């Protein structure tokens, strides 16, 4: 590849190069610059010149340096071995970079994304003579103890007859597994390793309606603002409001099959935390390590800005690849604002005319293109799989009216707004119940009602209603103090306050509390609503609120999120019975 020179450097301005003497360079072609072989990509072609974006620090590049073409677009390698690996923004495995250049990342290094020598145990599912179509499953490889990697017929082979297929056995990803004959008589060979350009969505048969929720184990999300599998959500919040913590929690406990975690322009130590912590965590559903379903992309804030721009696409392409195998994949992108800023930085260097706040005019288009790659799909092989996108947004100054938040809101259907006030009082997750919304309520209503004896939708409505009432009451309290309210209204404040501490708050570091099953959520909500209804009944009979508040069962309710383990949920049923009984008792006294 070093032999094909496409041009020579004319000008260097940070990560943007102007290359002259261009003849046959392709748009979006992957190139290498100078004798250091730095990685770059052609982003513009005009008048015999090309604009090239460099994915590494540009120090030392001189005018006159050769630019070598690779003949292909910036692509990722897709094969068994992706899971459990940590990559930089252009799919270079960071552990190998470390082996080659030590603790600091040097420039001009190239590595295969997956190990080409390792042998995998392949089991064919197709016999010689069979007709295969694009995306069909050719055979399987057990990638990790929980992920069966399905080898697909490459997308460009529309229909072909298998003339030869290997027996079950150990093969490297470059070994030829099958030979097929196309309808025009040409022969094609298929191996495990495939490449796909990152900026091109992988094709599917069709999009399906979203019906299943993505269960995250966070109560405020699952119960109040659910996300559907295949859905998109934005989590905006100023610094310190807990975006990253929320993302970590979801990555750890959500019920997707595969997680792609993209640390895009974030802190090095945070990525290290993920790296060290995930292998130690055990998935409550399967009993396996969480790393056995996770792919990490770490392009920290001090790594080159062009690679940050690419990291989002690298991540989603790998996600789509697993979706095509029939898996449910969730992508965490932390944070899309850094990605948008990378676009802005590069656009500024290319001296393009800026739109809002210096962002390029194509920002909304790019955001839309990214989020539209999510969805619940019928794959080419006829299975179903999904990609859900959970994108963090870091609005400057915590101000949600800035362009990235606003444009993102246009293209996502779910919004979990983080609130600084809540974060300051250490109410985590600091998801505001007033500002957030989910358009998936109607889509997942059926599923949730099936899993809660038909109560979920109504219960949710009730508690949201109380929270709205509370806002108005709080305003009155601010003016005249709580004593001026009648007990019936004061009780709403009391119930909401309990709901916030006992239900909405969740401690990510507590063994019991960090994951809350659907069943537990349903029961917890039910007991809190019972408290409201029974309590209100008693108060109208004349029971002073203080009496109800002091009940032992109420104190227990405040701590049930921490005390009731996942396998002893009847405790909550018993608690509810006891609560109702003791309120009835007090009520009885006052009735007479």
């Amino acid at each position, binding site marked *: 590849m070093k032999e094909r020179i496409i041009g020579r450097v*004319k*000008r*260097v*301005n940070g990560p943007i190069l102007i290359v*002259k*003497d261009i003849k046959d360079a392709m748009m979006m072609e992957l190139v290498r610059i100078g004798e250091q072989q730095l990685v770059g990509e052609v982003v513009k072609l005009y008048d015999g010149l090309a604009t090239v974006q460099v994915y590494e*620090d*540009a120090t*030392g*590049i*001189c*005018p*006159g*340096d050769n630019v070598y073409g690779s003949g292909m677009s910036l692509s990722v390698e897709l094969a068994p071995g992706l899971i459990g690996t*940590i990559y930089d923004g252009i799919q270079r495995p*960071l552990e190998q970079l*470390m082996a080659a250049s*030590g*603790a*600091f*990342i040097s420039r001009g290094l190239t590595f295969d994304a997956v190990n080409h020598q390792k042998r995998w145990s392949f089991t064919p599912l197709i016999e010689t003579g069979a007709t295969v179509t694009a995306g069909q499953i050719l055979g399987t490889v057990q990638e990790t103890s929980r992920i069966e990697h399905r080898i697909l017929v490459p997308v460009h082979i529309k229909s072909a007859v298998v003339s030869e297929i290997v027996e079950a056995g150990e093969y490297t990803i470059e070994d030829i597994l099958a030979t097929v004959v196309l309808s025009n008589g040409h022969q094609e060979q298929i191996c495990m390793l495939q490449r796909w350009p990152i900026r091109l969505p992988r094709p599917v048969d069709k999009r399906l309606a979203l019906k299943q929720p993505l269960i995250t184990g966070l109560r405020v999300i699952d119960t109040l603002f659910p996300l559907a599998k295949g859905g998109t959500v934005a989590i905006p919040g100023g*610094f310190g409001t807990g975006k990253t913590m929320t993302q970590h929690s979801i990555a750890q406990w959500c019920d997707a099959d595969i997680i792609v975690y993209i*640390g895009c*322009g974030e*802190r*090095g*130590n*945070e*990525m*290290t*935390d993920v790296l*060290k912590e995930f292998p130690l965590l055990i998935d409550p559903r399967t009993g396996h390590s969480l790393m056995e379903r996770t792919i990490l992309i*770490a392009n*920290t*804030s*001090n790594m080159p*800005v062009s690679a940050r721009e690419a990291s989002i696409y690298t991540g989603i392409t790998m996600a789509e690849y697993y979706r095509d195998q029939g898996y449910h994949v969730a992508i965490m992108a932390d944070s899309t604002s850094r990605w948008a*800023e990378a676009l*802005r*930085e590069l656009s*500024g260097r290319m001296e393009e005319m800026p739109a809002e*706040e*210096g962002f390029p005019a194509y920002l909304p288009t790019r955001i839309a293109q990214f989020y539209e790659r999510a969805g619940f799909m019928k794959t080419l092989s006829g299975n179903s799989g999904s990609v859900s996108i959970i994108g963090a947004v*870091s609005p*400057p*100054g*915590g*101000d949600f009216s800035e362009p990235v938040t606003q444009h993102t809101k246009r293209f996502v259907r779910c919004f979990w707004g983080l609130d*600084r006030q809540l974060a*300051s*009082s*250490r109410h985590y997750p600091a998801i505001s119940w007033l500002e957030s919304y989910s358009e998936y309520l109607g889509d997942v209503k059926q599923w949730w009602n099936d899993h809660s004896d038909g109560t979920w939708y109504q219960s949710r409505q009730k508690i949201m209603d109380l929270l709205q009432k509370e806002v108005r009451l709080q305003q009155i*309290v*601010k*003016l*005249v*103090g*709580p*004593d001026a309210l009648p007990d019936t209204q004061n009780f709403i404040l009391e119930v909401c306050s309990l709901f916030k501490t006992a239900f909405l708050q969740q401690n990510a*570091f507590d063994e019991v509390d960090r994951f809350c099953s659907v069943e537990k959520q349903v029961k917890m909500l039910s007991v809190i609503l019972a408290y409201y209804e029974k309590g209100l009944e008693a108060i109208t009979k004349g029971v002073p609120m203080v009496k109800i508040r002091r009940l032992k069962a109420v104190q227990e309710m405040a701590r049930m999120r921490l005390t009731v383990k996942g396998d002893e949920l009847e405790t909550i049923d018993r608690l509810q019975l006891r609560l109702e009984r003791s309120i009835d008792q007090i009520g009885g006294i006052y009735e007479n």
Partner: protein
Amino acid sequence: MRTKAETLLAQTDRRLLSGREYRGVSRIDGPLVYMRNTHAVGFGELVEILAPDGSHRSGQVLDTSDDVVVVQVFEGTDGLTLPATGMRFMGEPLTLGVSEQMLGRVMNGLGKSRDGSGTVQGFTQREVNGEPINPTAREYPRDFIQTGISVIDGMTTLIQGQKLPIFSGNGLDHNQLAAQIARQAKVRGSSGDFCIVFAAMGVKYDVARFFIDSFEETGVLDNVALFLSLADDPSIERTITPKTALTLAEYLAFDKGKQVLVIMTDMTNYCESLREIGTMRGEIPSRKGYPGYLYSNLAEIYERSGKISGRSGSITQLPILSMPNDDISHPVPDLTGYITEGQIVFERGMQARGIYPPINCLPSLSRLMKDGIGEGMTRADHPHLANQLFASYSHVKDVQNLASVIGEEELTTLDQQYLEFGSFFEKKFVNQGFDEDRSIEQTLDLGWEALSKLPSEELQRLTDEEIAQYYGK
């Protein structure tokens, strides 16, 4: 198209040509000098500028193309003329000679002597821009640094390898606090080789004096390397000062195994110099005129902290920045907050009430605290205690608002207890002397003393056992 031989020839040419002197520049604009008709000069190359008066200055290539090279001059362009200014392109990136002898010295922003005791000896050459640390090579920081300051140790704990900025304003006591931390900071149970790298960007002479005196008084001056680029030095020098300082810090930490505390003040001045250059070059500005790459640029500084697995040293950063008009949403504090692992926020009102350090712990945060406190590190009750103090103090603010409307007399007994708690918390827990060095146990006990002003039912974030052990004791 050139053949391989030609390419090789061009490279040899370039090697031979580097160091060659050119005379006569085409344009001088603020700190930038433009020169035409040079050999092919590499991006980011070090440049030696020969001023007409015979003095030498240093600079760096900001933009290079076939016909013109743009150089920024760190010492400023005063006195340069178009025909008589000479340049030498050194063919290598900007480097700094580093050595342990730099401890105890006062240098300018480029690492040259400023204290009049001869040239600074640097034996190992290091690139000033540094290289990013591979995330897989990092070690997650979890060693608690005891600063002896209650509100920091108790509420926003500093961890070895962390970057924790102080968001302050003009006229607030951030310098005193930084000096106090530098004096008192220690990792308990380890006698680690501790040293300080101090970088001053555009600060007043008095401030620099204050730090030098304070280091001298406590006898740590021999363990401090000072890089001073003062308010009346060329503003461009500030853009390189934190990088030279961190280059030395990396050497001391990762080559020599020292525990390095880097204090950088004032980051706002650094950003303003960047803005100056950006505007001068006609770049498209983003928020408040700051360049669009400010985030990446700050990240390249702040991310040069941490620990590397297998090496004993660490870099802890304590950048100080003044928020213009006390506005935390100003681009500099805002972008900083997104990169650093938390922040310590000063509040003018608290200083007016005579509280030192005037830290408002509610917007303050230490992201690494969670893994550095608790059993075996500080004390088992620390995480819950801090959590409870945050929650209760945050309620105090609500009560104060209510009290300002309906009057303190109208408050319920419980709310009055909260006010009492709030006042104790600010006056006894937060407030302390310049020389007061409290151990973590003293800090936590003070926290419990504050909570004992509240009825125990209010303490929902503490376990019953913790309450039984410490409450009201």
